[in-house]
């Protein structure tokens, strides 16, 4: 199955055009096995046998066996499990089901097949930049590969059957992670939410509902999954994202025209704090990283690349940071370690 070899790029490593406001794009397909109750209705034992069944289907070719590996959540410690969420490899719902759930991930971490989340299979493909068509092609290839061995629950009228009616039909959720500091500064996010809802899409902060408030990173995704084709879903999403990019850039230009010194001051002070602080919590860290990112995107800071910022974003999250040092650190000690880590990386 060489076809699965893809052109997707690990989003953390992505550092192409510095002015690109899109950090990553993701497509997730929800699938269930025919004649099996959905994961919530399965015993732990039965659920784990589903994990084996999907592994068998996927690993039937030796190429896949070399490229992918399984992670069983019931064998991982708490920080490791949470760290997978912080790295965007799995959803928090998968971690909630940790006695039943597993995921199969490829070597560059662009493909993650979650097993026993809300549905038996949640196939996720994630890549740097905005190339949703490429990502959909890759998702389809792996989906077809699994379907060669496994019969999916599918209905002629309402499509792929999922545990929640909000995913039925295509089972496809496409989302784009985008940096919108100027629009957030102008309190325009709620307005965007209202508009997006009208076209069957939604916006939410990264790392859960509210944290966009600190990081200014938002996920735009489709809400409607039925009655529209996969290509149309991603075409609509792309159109909306491009529109948001234009709006954000316009807001930034306005800020530059009206208060260039203030904005440059804010960006360089943020960089200064990150480079020198001795103790820093997650919220402040996200806020300052967003300011520095904006500086890089606007060409105000030239000597820092996005790759460094991407890694800082993930590795300063509590579980990932804790895992790097010591799982038992108190919040205060973690804040000290976080400051140490950032100073080291920005040296």
């Amino acid at each position, binding site marked *: 199955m060489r076809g699965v070899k893809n052109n997707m790029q690990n989003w953390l490593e992505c550092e192409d055009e510095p002015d690109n406001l899109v950090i990553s794009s993701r497509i997730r397909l929800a699938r269930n096995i025919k004649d099996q109750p*959905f994961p919530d209705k399965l015993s732990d034992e039965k659920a784990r046998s589903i994990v084996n069944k999907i592994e068998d289907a996927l690993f039937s070719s030796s190429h896949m066996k070399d490229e992918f590996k399984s992670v069983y959540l019931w064998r991982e410690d708490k920080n490791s499990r949470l760290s997978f969420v912080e790295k965007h490899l799995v959803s928090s719902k998968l971690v909630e089901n940790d006695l039943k759930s597993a995921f199969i991930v490829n070597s560059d971490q662009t493909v993650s097949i979650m097993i026993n989340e809300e549905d038996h299979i949640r196939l996720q493909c994630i890549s740097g930049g905005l190339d949703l068509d490429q990502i959909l092609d890759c998702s*389809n290839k792996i989906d077809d590969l699994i*379907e060669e061995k496994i019969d999916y629950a599918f*209905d002629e009228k309402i499509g*792929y059957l999922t545990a929640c*009616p909000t995913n039925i039909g295509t089972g496809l959720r496409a989302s784009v992670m985008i940096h919108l500091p100027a629009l957030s500064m102008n309190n325009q996010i709620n307005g965007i939410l209202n508009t997006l809802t009208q076209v069957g899409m939604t916006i939410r902060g990264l790392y859960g509902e509210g944290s966009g408030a600190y990081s200014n990173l938002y996920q735009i995704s489709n809400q409607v999954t*039925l009655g529209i084709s996969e290509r149309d879903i991603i075409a609509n999403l792309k159109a909306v994202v491009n529109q948001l990019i234009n709006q954000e850039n316009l807001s930034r230009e306005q800020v530059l025209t009206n208060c260039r010194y203030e904005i440059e001051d804010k960006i360089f002070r943020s960089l200064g704090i990150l480079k020198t602080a001795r103790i820093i919590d997650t919220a402040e860290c996200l806020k300052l990283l967003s300011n520095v990112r904006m500086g890089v995107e606007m060409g105000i800071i030239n000597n820092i690349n996005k790759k460094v910022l991407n890694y800082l974003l993930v590795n300063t999250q509590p579980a990932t940071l804790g895992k790097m040092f010591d799982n038992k650190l108190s919040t205060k000690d973690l804040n000290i370690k976080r400051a140490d880590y950032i100073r080291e990386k920005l040296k």
Partner: protein
Amino acid sequence: MLCEMCKKNDAVFYVTKIVNGNKQEIKLCEHCAKKFDGFNFVSEMGIISPFSFQNILSGLMDYIGESHKNSTDTDVSCKKCGMTLREFKEKGLLGCSECYENFSSTVYPVINRVQGKIEHVGKIPKKCGKDIIEKKRMDTLKQELQKSIALEEYEKAAEIRDKIRKINNEGSEE
């Protein structure tokens, strides 16, 4: 202490959130605390939005129930997995693929309201959807045939008719 929102006035409201042992605090002035109430406040603090699907579902089902009196008996259960309507109403999740059929009179109106449509037009699985793909192709051809006849494009209609015949013959040979 300055308000963390406007950074101008003195903070008089201290809000503390503890989730899974992680403590977070936000300090606000009176003005910002007022602005910050209700929905906004909840989402800023990262608490699960009261407008999640599970939460609005039960309201939706009660509403639908008014027009389908007989289908709202919440103790009805799925023959396959034992899921009850009450459970679906609380969790927003169905138990198995057959729930869609067994609860169709409740679930279909919900789908219609959530999705706005009730006809899948996307991908069809290659293996177990083979018959469906054939059937959909045949339906499209038949529609095209009707259209060409209506438009009096008889040459095109003949072509389509031949295609349909060919598929039918292939089917009967198998």
